[in-house]
């Protein structure tokens, strides 16, 4: 029996915000959820997707931290910023390819998902996976996942030329071996707004 891990099955997300609410309950960041519940193509669909920290094998957030505040534990969990070291520079916020770290101006600190380290380090599920009614967020062994889900779990990401391997996996159809994320060309304006570019859509009216 291998170790339990967190899996995200975007197709199962029903946008109920239970994970966001549960995350807020944590005493270390009460009232501030560390989960982003993204809305995909708001105009065409009600599909949502939860985004927790993916816990990269080579965490970019820690690589760019000038204050040496982000540390990775021996179990592969990338921890939230050490409060006495974090200088609130937002480097990690800009660098994270998943957009996970959040900067809180009121306390001048970055905070991010740490996989509910207080719970997962003693064998409990993270809070989001505990409450998710459709098990879009689920904490189980890969064998269990294979037995109960249709897709396969993938933890390889390609952002342009950058390859990222993560501790948290996403459930995708069998034929997908790695997730390619297309990059937006900066400074290049498209003639027609993309269907998921809400800002541009609002501009068009």
């Amino acid at each position, binding site marked *: 029996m291998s170790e339990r891990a967190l899996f995200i099955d975007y197709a199962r997300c029903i946008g109920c915000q239970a994970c966001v609410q549960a995350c807020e309950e944590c005493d270390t960041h009460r009232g501030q959820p560390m989960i982003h519940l993204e809305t995909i193509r708001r105009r065409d669909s009600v599909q949502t997707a939860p985004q927790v920290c993916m816990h990269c094998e080579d965490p970019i957030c820690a*690589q760019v931290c000038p204050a040496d505040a982000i540390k990775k534990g021996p179990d592969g969990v990338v921890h939230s910023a050490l409060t006495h070291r974090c200088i609130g520079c937002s480097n990690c916020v800009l660098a994270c390819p998943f957009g996970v770290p959040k900067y809180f101006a009121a306390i001048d600190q970055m905070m991010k998902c740490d996989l509910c380290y207080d719970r997962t380090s003693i064998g409990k599920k993270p809070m989001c996976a505990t409450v998710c009614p459709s098990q879009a967020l689920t904490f189980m062994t890969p064998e269990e996942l294979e037995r109960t889900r249709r897709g396969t779990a993938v933890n390889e990401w390609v952002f342009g030329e*950058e390859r990222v391997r993560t501790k948290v996996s996403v459930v995708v159809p069998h034929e997908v071996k790695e997730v390619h994320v297309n990059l937006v060309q900066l400074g290049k304006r498209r003639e027609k707004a993309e269907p998921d570019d809400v800002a541009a859509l609002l501009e068009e009216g």
Partner: protein
Amino acid sequence: MANGEGAGIKGRIQRWREDFPIRWLDDHYIARREFAKALTIGSALLVGVNAVIAAVGRWVRRPGQMEAEVPVGKASEIPTGGSVLFRYPTDEDPCILVRTQSGDLRAYSQVCTHLSCAIVHQSEKDSFLCPCHRGHFSVNDGRPTGGPPVRRLPRIWIEQRGDELWAVGKDS
């Protein structure tokens, strides 16, 4: 770097990354050389601080205590076996000056080192007696010679200027 952490985008390990590792295990790892260095510097500091404390006690605080000089009386007025009470260095500290059978002048704090009763001079035995618990002290060096006290009486240093006696210092 033990496990390739810090290999950047280009795959090159940065030298500075070794000092600021991302992984806990690397961060908390203490090399034998660092440990030995901390031990050496720590004990050197301990020796240094001890030397400073000793120096302060030896040279800095001593003159301050010796500044207080109090007249005690006239040497000619104290017969052999006689004693004089005085206070030194402050009015709160009772002291006793005696002339021993051999004719030397000796002064001590009058406070018994056992439970702070006032000692009295016994000229025929050439010793001090604490009446509370029958503690005895020698007049020659103030050491306890009997009874419960275990610490010696603090010595008061007396200086003779002409016929005048002055208390000029105190042993702790």
